[in-house]
């Protein structure tokens, strides 16, 4: 493997006719990093991946590995010479070749000597726990085993970059978790630079060094799992990260207390107090102040897990009636309507989702408390956020 420090993708764009599947995608990967592309179906994850491999020609932009130009639309290294490895969602094993021959395929093309070849194939198969499967054909194996072969087939070549396109999505839930651990362990061990595509936030959080959240071909946020999880860049990322309670609010007052910004909000008739630990100079402060001055709408986002059933104490108390209770074992998912019977501008009542271990009966009344520091504030749309220069 040719050694390198960084792979950088600059302004990569892919258009299919009128449709822009990947829009101005720029990102740097350090060697050994595990980066995940996360986003809903159709957001351009696979297209971005295939553009990086060269399997899909890019419309504009550049890809560099240190000072080696991989692709700038005019000159490009063909996919077979990039030394990248790819694992496909449907495994894409060669059905007419045995497991051994599938894994040996790339080595044979590189004319590796026989003794070394079988040593390397054996090592790769051992790494994915498939000793003893060498003589089998892919169709005689389970989905999980096939995907392991696909991974072995790539890592045996020691690729500069390993790309996995939703490798676990055809597997059942249990196997998915199992193989996820194995991918993680394999990465810890081999430290191969990896791009992993998924629409499953749990997978992304569990595996990644960094997560790239995509929407309609555009990068929404790049950050560590904890950054993306607790400090989403906009409403879209928040929604994707499970902030289900998105309420329309107006800012009634703003004040500074001990380095944090405290906002009194009116959520369709329900008073809320939110505290934002935004540092001095954070651009979001200006946007919020502007919203307060003009009386513009904002949105709050709160995780169901962060809302608690109120005891004696607790701020932001809301009395509600449960409309739907979904038992999920350890906890229950509850949908409720606040008693204050506030209706939003479009007439629908505010909906409150929470997750709680306490037993709540359907139709029963109870009081919840929303911790003020768990309330996130956003401009009402991602475009508004972008226009206002809203960046965490």
């Amino acid at each position: 493997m040719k050694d390198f420090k960084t792979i950088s993708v600059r302004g990569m764009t892919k258009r299919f006719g009128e449709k822009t599947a990947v829009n101005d995608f720029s990102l740097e990967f350090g060697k050994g990093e595990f980066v995940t592309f996360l986003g809903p179906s159709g957001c351009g994850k696979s297209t971005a991946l295939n553009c990086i491999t060269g399997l899909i020609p890019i419309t504009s932009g550049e890809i560099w590995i240190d000072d080696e130009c991989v692709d700038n639309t005019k000159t490009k290294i063909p996919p077979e010479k990039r030394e990248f490895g790819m694992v496909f969602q449907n495994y894409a094993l060669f059905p007419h070749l045995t497991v051994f021959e599938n894994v040996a395929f790339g080595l044979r093309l590189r004319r590796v000597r026989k003794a070394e070849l079988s040593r390397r194939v054996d090592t790769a198969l051992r790494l994915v726990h498939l000793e003893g499967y060498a003589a089998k054909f892919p169709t005689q194996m389970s989905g999980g085993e096939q995907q392991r072969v696909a991974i072995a087939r790539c890592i045996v070549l020691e690729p500069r970059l390993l790309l996995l396109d939703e490798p676990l999505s055809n597997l059942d839930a249990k196997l998915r978790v199992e193989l996820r651990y194995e991918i993680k362990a394999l990465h810890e061990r081999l430290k191969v630079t990896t791009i992993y595509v998924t629409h499953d936030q749990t997978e992304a959080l569990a595996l990644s060094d960094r997560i790239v959240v995509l929407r309609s071909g555009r990068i929404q946020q790049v950050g560590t799992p904890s950054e993306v999880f607790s400090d989403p860049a906009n409403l879209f990322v928040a929604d994707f990260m499970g902030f289900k309670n998105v309420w329309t609010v107006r800012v009634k007052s703003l004040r500074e207390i001990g380095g944090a910004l405290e906002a009194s909000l009116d959520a369709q008739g329900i008073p809320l107090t939110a505290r934002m630990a935004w540092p001095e100079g954070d651009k979001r402060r200006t946007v919020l102040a502007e919203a307060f001055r003009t009386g513009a709408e904002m949105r709050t986002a709160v995780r169901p897990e962060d809302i608690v059933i109120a005891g004696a104490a607790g701020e932001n108390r809301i009395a509600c009636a449960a409309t739907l209770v979904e038992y999920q074992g350890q906890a229950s998912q509850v949908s409720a309507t606040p008693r204050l019977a506030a209706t939003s501008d479009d007439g629908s009542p505010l909906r409150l989702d929470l997750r709680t271990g306490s037993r709540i009966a359907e139709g029963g009344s109870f009081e919840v408390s929303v911790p003020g520091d768990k309330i996130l504030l956003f401009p009402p749309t991602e475009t508004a956020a972008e226009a206002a220069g809203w960046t965490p």
Partner: protein
Amino acid sequence: MDAVKGSSKAGALPLLLPAILFLVLLFLYPFAYGLYLSLTTAKGEPSLGNYLRFFGEARDFRTIWVTLQIAVPITLVNVGLAVPFAYYMRRGMRGERLITFFLIIPITLGTVLVSEGMLSFMGPKGWLNQLLLALHVVAEPYRFTHNYLGVVISLGLQGFPYAFLMLLGYVSGINPDLEKASQMLGANRWQTFWKILFPLMIPGIAISFCLNFVMAFSVFPSAVLLGQPSGPTRVISIAAYQWAFEKFNFNAASAISMVMAAIELLVISAVLVWRSRMYKGASMVGKG
């Protein structure tokens, strides 16, 4: 559990009966009757005479060789051409419908119409020769018809579309990710074709070779219309025809048909053996 399975099997038999009856009436009975005829004399006495006469008479016996000389090369050409064409069109291309349309025409028109078309188009006074003369490619009209070439061209026009359409269906059914995977592992187009696509196409190639060969080996109308049925293109089916409808010896004609069937079977088995040698993996080419 087993009882249920058993009863479902027993239940299937009556449902299969019409199909079995159909097969027996349409296929097995004529074959068995032909075999019986070929092994008896006109009076119905058992005899190997029909076969001995066929293999003993050079005029009849050599038709096997004549027919193979026509059928084998053109089948190889048809399938050999169909493979690259199907490969290039596997992901669709502009004008694919038009191309397919023109390919289907010879199939829908039938042998006789195609032969007549060829006679006038490629005949000594046809457009093709006039064009070649005008371009000074030839000094005098080239003979495309009423010879070996005529029969072979007509079999090409008829057989190629079958081979092509069949293989096209076959290749476009191969999961496109396999090609991408091969490429990502370092294979160029050529290597990907020979190591991945071609092996996966082998079952399709085998089947289309068999069909094309059987079609070419039993050639009759174009051998009569476009060839020289008295000599160089006196194929085996003409020999059978002459015994049956000129000499009214159905026993001898049946023997020739049996020889035809045997040769076809031999070639098909050879192809299938080749196929199983080349393609060992499970014959599943799903889209994954």
